[in-house]
């Protein structure tokens, strides 16, 4: 049996699953310290007496801790950013495009050193050990314990980052090193930004993982813990302590993956209707389609793997007003729905009231909305349906109708069909789809590099990339027999005569539950 937990901004959701069966689900408010909310959720699950703690084989947690820490610029550790690329890159030093508030929170410690590669693998300059030792000395004297290292074209060749990392580790015993080629893609600033964010979260990651272990110990669960990543795969806690940024945006991913699991649709649109906003994403082969443009976190540009999600201001708590023109949202009563909405005895007309008046949902007191004009109800329902259909259409990849899966507490706003939907599915357990998504996450490996097609054929090159991705998935804990390639993307690089092409391959597999030594690295 496994437990899936999703720590969201408002609620902490948890499920207990036996194979593909949901045995128990709970929803509790997220607490400020997060951990006590998780303990409550776990106690409720186990308290339902459906499972003995000893039967739990694995606990999967999706959390917004790390994203929030960056957005709020709180609990971040002083961090040194070491970049290898001199004499190139000086014009735009590390953290050049960060908001002042966040740069200050990290201390703004920046070191430009020699190293780096050209696009074709030549060295820009050689690594200078003396220069790195001087940097180490300065870092040590300032008491900085976390270092982000980025080298030009390290996704093509990582040797300099690795060497510099080893040198700094030997000069600064106990220092935590984050290497950019392990975190981001081509695009130095964005990759470096992600690496620096990772570095400044390392202390918090250790603390959070300890707290999760403590929470499990409190309820007597000894199973290994995994954290969900933003691409719908899992990582071991050891990995999470080294790569906390990989948790960014895992919430929408988990909810989409949970929707796929509950509905059985692997290629479909998923609409997650919350209290204030709705998220629409697209599943391809059971995984969320990724955004291709730069993603900002706390106003800093990064190039993380992020699900491509379109959010808009429509949810169960959205205000409905007609002052000349009918308007629904984006303002919402949010978590105060159960005190402010008409059907709950409040004085505010919300989207939920419309759904209740229209007979879509049987909640609260229907008589309180009986006085609403049938015309207003009809037009409001139509407007909500149109907006959701438009959002889905915007995200679709082909003109044909596709299955649409609806999850989240606000699902009641949607009738049994939508324009552009080949079928509309509202699965069971829809309110905890995110926790289910965490529970069923797989493990993956990815390759993203520039390959030259001059020396090898395209097919050989693709095979090489696929093999490498599969090996990475197994190294991350996937059961070798279940690993398969889920995504291949090629981007030819303009202006380069050597027929260079950028290839991205992603492979995933089932978590090997029996062989924990492989999965957790313990």
């Amino acid at each position, binding site marked *: 049996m496994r437990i899936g937990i999703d720590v969201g901004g408002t609620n902490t959701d948890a499920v207990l699953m036996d194979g593909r069966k949901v045995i128990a689900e709970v929803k509790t408010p997220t607490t400020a310290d997060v951990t006590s909310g998780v303990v409550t959720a776990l106690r409720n699950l186990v308290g339902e007496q459906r499972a003995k703690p000893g039967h739990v084989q694995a606990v999967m947690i999706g959390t917004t801790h790390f994203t929030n820490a960056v957005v709020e610029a709180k609990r971040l550790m002083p961090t040194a950013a070491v970049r290898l*690329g001199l*004499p*190139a*890159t*000086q*014009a*735009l030093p590390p953290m*050049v*495009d960060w908001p002042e508030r966040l740069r200050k929170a990290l201390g703004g410690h920046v070191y430009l050193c020699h190293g*780096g590669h*050209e*696009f*074709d693998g*030549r060295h*820009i*300059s050689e690594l200078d050990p003396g220069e790195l030792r001087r940097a180490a000395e300065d870092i040590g004297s300032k008491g900085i314990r976390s270092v982000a290292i980025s080298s*030009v*074209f390290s996704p093509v060749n990582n040797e300099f980052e690795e060497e510099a990392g080893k040198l700094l580790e030997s000069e600064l015993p106990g220092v935590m090193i984050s290497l950019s080629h392990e975190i981001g893609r*081509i*695009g*130095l*600033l964005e990759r470096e930004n992600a690496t620096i964010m990772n570095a400044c979260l390392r202390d918090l990651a250790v603390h959070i993982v300890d707290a999760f272990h403590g929470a499990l110990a409190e309820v007597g669960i000894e199973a290994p813990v995994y954290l969900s990543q933003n691409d719908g795969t899992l990582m071991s806690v050891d990995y999470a302590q080294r790569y906390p940024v990989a948790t960014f945006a895992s919430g929408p991913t988990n909810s989409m993956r949970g929707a796929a699991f509950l509905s059985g649709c692997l290629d479909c649109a998923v609409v997650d209707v919350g209290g204030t906003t709705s998220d629409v994403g*697209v599943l391809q082969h059971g995984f969320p389609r990724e955004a*291709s*443009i*730069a993603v900002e976190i706390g106003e800093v*540009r990064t190039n993380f793997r992020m699900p491509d999600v379109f959010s808009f201001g429509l949810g169960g708590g959205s205000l409905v007003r007609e002052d000349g023109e009918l308007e629904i949202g984006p303002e919402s009563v949010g978590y105060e729905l159960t005190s402010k909405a008409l059907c709950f005895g409040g004085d505010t007309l919300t989207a939920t009231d419309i759904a209740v008046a229209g007979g879509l949902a049987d909640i609260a007191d229907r008589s309180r909305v009986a006085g609403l004009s049938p015309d207003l109800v009809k037009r409001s329902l139509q407007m909500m349906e149109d907006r959701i259909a438009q959002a889905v259409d*915007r*995200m*679709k*990849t*082909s*003109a044909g109708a596709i299955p649409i899966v609806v999850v989240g507490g606000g699902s009641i706003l949607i009738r049994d069909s939508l324009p552009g939907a080949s079928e509309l599915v509202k699965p069971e357990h829809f309110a905890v789809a995110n926790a289910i998504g965490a529970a069923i996450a797989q493990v993956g490996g990815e390759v993203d590099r520039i390959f030259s097609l001059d020396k090898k054929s395209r097919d050989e090159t693709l095979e090489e990339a696929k093999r490498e991705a599969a090996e990475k998935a197994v190294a991350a804990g996937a059961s070798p027999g279940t690993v398969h390639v889920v995504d291949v993307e*090629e*981007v*030819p*690089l*303009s*202006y*380069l*005569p050597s*027929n*260079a*092409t*950028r290839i991205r391959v992603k492979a995933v597999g089932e978590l090997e539950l029996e062989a924990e030594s492989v999965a957790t690295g313990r």
Partner: protein
Amino acid sequence: MRQVDETDLEDLAVGAAVLGTGGGGNPYIGKLLAQQAIRAHGPVTLVDVGEVPDDALVVPSAMMGAPTVMVEKLPRGDEIIRAFKTLEEYLGRPITHTVSIEAGGLNSTTPFGVAAQMKIPLVDADGMGRAFPEIQMVTPTLFGVSATPMALADEKGNIALIATIDNRWTERFARSITVDMGATAMIALYVLSGKQLKESMVPGTIGLAQELGRLIRETRAAHGDAVQAILDRLRGYRVFEGKIADVQRRTEAGFAKGEARIDGVEGDAGASLVIRFQNEHLVAIRDGEIVASVPDLIIVLGAETGEPITTEELRYGFRVTVIATPCDPKWRTKAGIDLVGPRYFGYDIDYVPVEERFGAAARR
């Protein structure tokens, strides 16, 4: 004459991507470089073409190479200064002004860094009124201005000074040298007198880019139609509305070539538009018939946001509005069409100006 500061560059970068017609490189890096230079050296003085004395020595500055490499191997910062010094030594005279060679994309902002560091004015003009993939494809070529002497500089300290028999040879040599330098180089070329600048360059395009960016920002803030605002400003035409259905890309002879197919919606429902590109958009083909071509500007905008979308960002599912706007009249001469018309890019059709194809009736 006016001063341009850090914040003006935000709008400029967005507008430059509009004029980039899908290519021109990532304006984000260019914007950051210019902002850093302005932070360190103070605002840049932007002068109109009419304010430049006839005997001024104007040298355009740009970044050359693969956009995908430019986002990784960032510049050292003083490359272009060394290229300028080398040219000054060769010419035996001080450079008085710099100017953009390409208003579309990255190179609209590149000269700001030069102007700030060298403390020389930047002329509000460019050599294309848009973006094009090759060095010889500038309006000064039509007026007999030689691209060389040209200086290329890398971050290591290497400088190449080249002289060629014509501007196509400049493209060949410069392309090879740029690849050797690591697929990016800072370049100074097309040395112009103030008089030559006035007759051969496209005036006002930097101000135009800034204005386009501001229009998009302000129209969106007021919940207006940003696409319409751009059409009005550029006197352009709506070509097509639809959703990207397919994108194919390949590398050929060092260029990103490919095509995007867009399935029509609303008034264009049932029709399909194909846009072919070589770094920049070349032709738009509606149901088998070419409806717009170079040198006119074929621009892809987000249907709701009006934000420009580059060919690298083109992706299945995007809702887009394709517009076409007239190119600078200098391109509409026989020499201009020979240099950058559809036949140069391999399309055996006559160039027909976008106004003639769409006429007043098509403008909405």
